[in-house]
């Protein structure tokens, strides 16, 4: 009797898993088709127009680049140099040292001949008060601010309070932005007839690339399987998911490593919140809610050509920490905004994007992890699942993913072509297959841990250590304690 009930439960669970995999794969296929269309069209259109007009135009709005930094002494000078060299008519760069225990501020002071000043600080969004400002009147676009540790969102809020430009761009201290990327990010804002409050770009993995003078001098691929799988994963995420949601006007995630926001709207919405560990996802949801409640017309755009290069974790332990945090943050944001799910007031965001992100992106990993590693093998061993069904499961969980990954690499090759060598593309295609045979399933476990941590009430920001890029300054540590 008990065995019968257990098998019955297994049957129900298998049905649930099967439905989940079918829905997920259908969803991703639709996103893939939309992305193929929108990215190729955008690529054709944008390539022909160039950005010289924007760089010369007096109408192009100034942008403040806000760089929150915590113990970034090795990378920060390269990052700031790259930002100073960005092709953009009017910009201010605000580095917010979030109570670093290393020489982050000192290396900046030395490199850019900054001097300490007693400047006015006007609080528009709540944040911990800064205690020192560094500036060089011969390089007026750069300001460095020191404050006690308060986490990345707090540092961003301090940057907002000091910024004078109508738009600001969040930049991670260990990221490299391509020279024209800011102009490309601004292009949709300039060409939009409604207020564009968010403009996001693509983030790529810089592991394996060669750095020179704060710029990517030679695009390459990493050697380790973990990093290679992450390269393919980033291509898939940024070439498929986000352009498609942008096409449907339902953007919910924009990477905080490189994202431009309308300052006044962010200030009105209360700035970055410290209630989640992924402030970039949280701010998007907050802005959607605020603007919908006000009934204001707005747009959030994701553009597939401005590129920011970042370093991916090198070890499985660091990688696990990163993914747990991302998943925890996504869960926190989704649960914080649960009333938006299937709420027609929020349009395609409420009816499509939010349910997708809540049930597939946020909680789906539980089904993926337990289904793949536990329920399916158990059912097969207990003979409650016939071979045909087991093979179908395997196909849906593993095989179909190769199509999506290969498609994304193909899209990259057809549009951006950041990997010049044929051998690079072939290697990427090889890993597009390989990453479905183990990597994605491991990621599902880490993500599931993040979800479980959310239910357990944990909200700690885990330390992620980076090794540094080839040609860069070496070892860096990115550590934020919320």
């Amino acid at each position, binding site marked *: 009797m008990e065995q019968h009930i257990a098998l019955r439960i297994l049957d129900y669970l298998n049905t649930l898993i099967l439905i989940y995999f079918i829905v997920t794969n259908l969803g991703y296929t639709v996103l893939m088709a939309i992305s193929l269309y929108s990215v190729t069209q955008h690529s054709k259109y944008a390539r022909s127009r160039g950005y*010289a007009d924007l760089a010369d135009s007096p*109408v192009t709005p100034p942008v403040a680049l806000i760089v929150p930094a915590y113990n970034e002494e090795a990378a920060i000078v390269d990052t700031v140099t790259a930002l100073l060299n960005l092709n953009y008519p009017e910009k201010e760069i605000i580095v917010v040292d979030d109570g670093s225990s290393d020489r982050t501020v000192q290396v900046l002071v030395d490199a850019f001949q900054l001097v300490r000043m007693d400047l006015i600080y006007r609080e528009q969004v709540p944040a911990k008060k800064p205690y020192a400002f560094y500036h060089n009147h011969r390089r007026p676009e750069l300001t460095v601010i020191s404050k006690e540790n308060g986490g990345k969102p707090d540092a961003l809020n301090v940057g907002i309070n000091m910024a004078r430009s109508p738009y600001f761009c969040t930049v991670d201290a260990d990221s490299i932005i391509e020279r024209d990327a800011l102009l490309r990010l601004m292009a949709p804002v*300039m060409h939009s007839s409604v207020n564009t409050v968010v403009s996001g770009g693509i983030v790529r993995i810089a592991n394996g690339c060669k750095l020179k003078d704060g710029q990517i001098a030679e695009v390459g691929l990493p050697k380790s399987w973990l990093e290679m799988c992450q390269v393919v994963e980033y291509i898939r995420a940024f070439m498929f998911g986000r352009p498609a949601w942008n096409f449907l006007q339902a953007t919910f995630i924009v990477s905080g490593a490189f994202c431009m926001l309308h300052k006044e709207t962010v200030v009105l919405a209360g700035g970055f919140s410290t209630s989640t560990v992924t402030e970039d996802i949280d701010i998007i949801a907050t802005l959607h809610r605020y603007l919908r409640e006000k009934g204001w017309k707005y747009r959030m755009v994701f553009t597939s050509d401005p590129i920011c290069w970042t370093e991916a974790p090198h070890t499985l332990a660091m990688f696990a920490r990163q993914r747990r945090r991302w998943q925890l943050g996504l869960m926190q944001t989704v649960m914080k905004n649960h009333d938006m799910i299937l709420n027609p007031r929020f349009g395609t965001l409420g009816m499509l994007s939010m349910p997708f992100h809540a049930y597939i992106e946020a909680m789906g990993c539980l089904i993926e992890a337990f289904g793949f590693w536990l329920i399916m093998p158990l059912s097969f061993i207990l003979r409650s699942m016939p071979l045909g069904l087991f093979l179908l499961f395997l196909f849906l969980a593993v095989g179909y993913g190769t199509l999506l990954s290969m498609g994304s690499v193909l899209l990259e090759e057809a549009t951006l072509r950041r990997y010049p060598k044929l051998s690079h593309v072939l290697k990427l295609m090889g890993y597009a297959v390989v990453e479905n045979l183990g990597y994605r399933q491991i990621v599902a476990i880490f993500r599931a841990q993040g979800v479980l941590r959310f239910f357990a009430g944990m909200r700690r920001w885990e330390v992620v250590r980076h090794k540094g890029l080839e040609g860069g300054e070496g070892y860096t540590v990115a550590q934020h304690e919320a």
Partner: protein
Amino acid sequence: MLLFEDLILITVWLATAVVIVNLVFLVFVFYRRWARTRYYRAKDEAKERYRRAVADFMALSVGVEPTAQLLRDARSEAEKDGVLDLLREGLAGLTTPRHVSSSSGMRTPSSAGRIASSSGRLQSGTGRITSPTIVVGQALERVSELLFALGYIEGWARTAFGRGRASELVKRSLNKEKTAVSTEVRQSPLNRIRRMRIFSVPRALAVDKLGSLAADYAHVFMAEALHDPATEVRSVAVAAMGRARHPAAIPLLLEELRKALEEGNDVSLRSTKAALCSYQMSDLELFVPYVRHPNRRLRFFVIDTMREISSRAGRSMQLTRRGFPDELCSLLLEHSVNDVFADVRARSAALVAQFRDAQAAEALRKLLKDENEFVRLHTVRVCGDRYYGDLIPDILRCLSDSKWRVREAAVGTLRAFGMAGLNELFRYFAATSDRYESEQIAEEIQRTGMIEQLVTALASGGEASRLADAVCRKMATMGKTSLLLNAVAARIPQEARILLMDALMVAPTAKYMSILETLAETDGGPVGDKARDLLRQAVSRSGQMSATPSSGRGFPSGSSGRGFPSGSSGRGTPSRG
């Protein structure tokens, strides 16, 4: 009923399908790489083949028709692109271009199109060419004629406007016809489909290429493109109009602007304004009819556009009233500076400031007292011109403005007057007891590097030295000592250093005392003597307060100084401004 055996078969079929699609993807990558290589090889070969012909054409040694006959052999897309590349390189070689296209169309210096419109008066190869830009204008006109002769323009026009309209438009373009001031989107049941990017992007790309022709030829096409239902096409046309700067395009662009303000327009205000801002001072008279437009926001955009045009021109030469059309000057001085819409008044100030005459000064004086903060802000920003020295007392009044942005702008403006302005600023700073005014001025003194001038002035003696001393004491009292402490610790002239040490003693901080101690120990000269003397004074003073000077106790710590509440370095939002 679905059997499990069928399920195995279905799965196998599905897996096979996925493998096949993946292989197709892989083959596509190889094909794409091969196709690109072939395209570039063909393009490079075509460039080599036609380089001489194009060079002769650009050097005016061969006419349009013989060159066209030679270039007609270029039939494939790659070959045509090669020819266009050569023509573009030829144009770019004539002068240093500001805009060079990344597309296969041609983009020339933005002035070229405008000059091309007058180049009809010039004769090829007659030696009457006077400047590189005119050479480019003339060359662009010839290149456009060549493209007509090659049939490229007809091809682009067909893609952009359809077979039916193309030949008519080409004829009108060749005749350099004027266009009606209409930008209405043509209604059609197919508009929904035509708006889809898959159809609109090729049209937009074709319009972009047509927009790079000489302005007189391009105008007909651009005006036609404004009737397109797709945003992409109209945006490209608007941007091309800005580059070509054809006078007849101004009413069309302003009509686009009006639509955006009154009816809603999917071409953004910024794009249209950017195109209008590309025009030059000589085009300002074309904006005059719109200065008194009934729509206040349109009036604002028109004035603001003229402000951008004149401020760009003002960067390379000093403008006066004579540089502006008379009618515009009268309108601005009589109407715009008194407009009911504050934004119009604010932007008018910048234009009026370029006149540099007594009437303009009077108008600016009035605007400096305007009830609206943005008007005051924009006015005070543009008064930083030595011609307006008489306005210094009015600008000084802005230092006590209730809005911090106005106060900040006033400091910057006074700085622009050189020592005269700075002395007035320093006097005001030393005398004022208002916390907010003092904070703002201290901020600007630090941000703009005025500290260096102050320290230099300290040792110069006389009135300047007394004033600098008063400013340093005031800053010390406010706790704005970071830069002054740097100066004391740095190797500045001895006399200035000693005076600065005295000034800092009005509100000594712990950091200052530690600097004094270091100086007392390490410096054997007058600076060391002064430091020891000041330390002795401090000890005797703190003795009365039963405190030890070396530990810094007994002195105000951090940035809080006498007369200001703790944290007066500006932290927290000041209630004013």
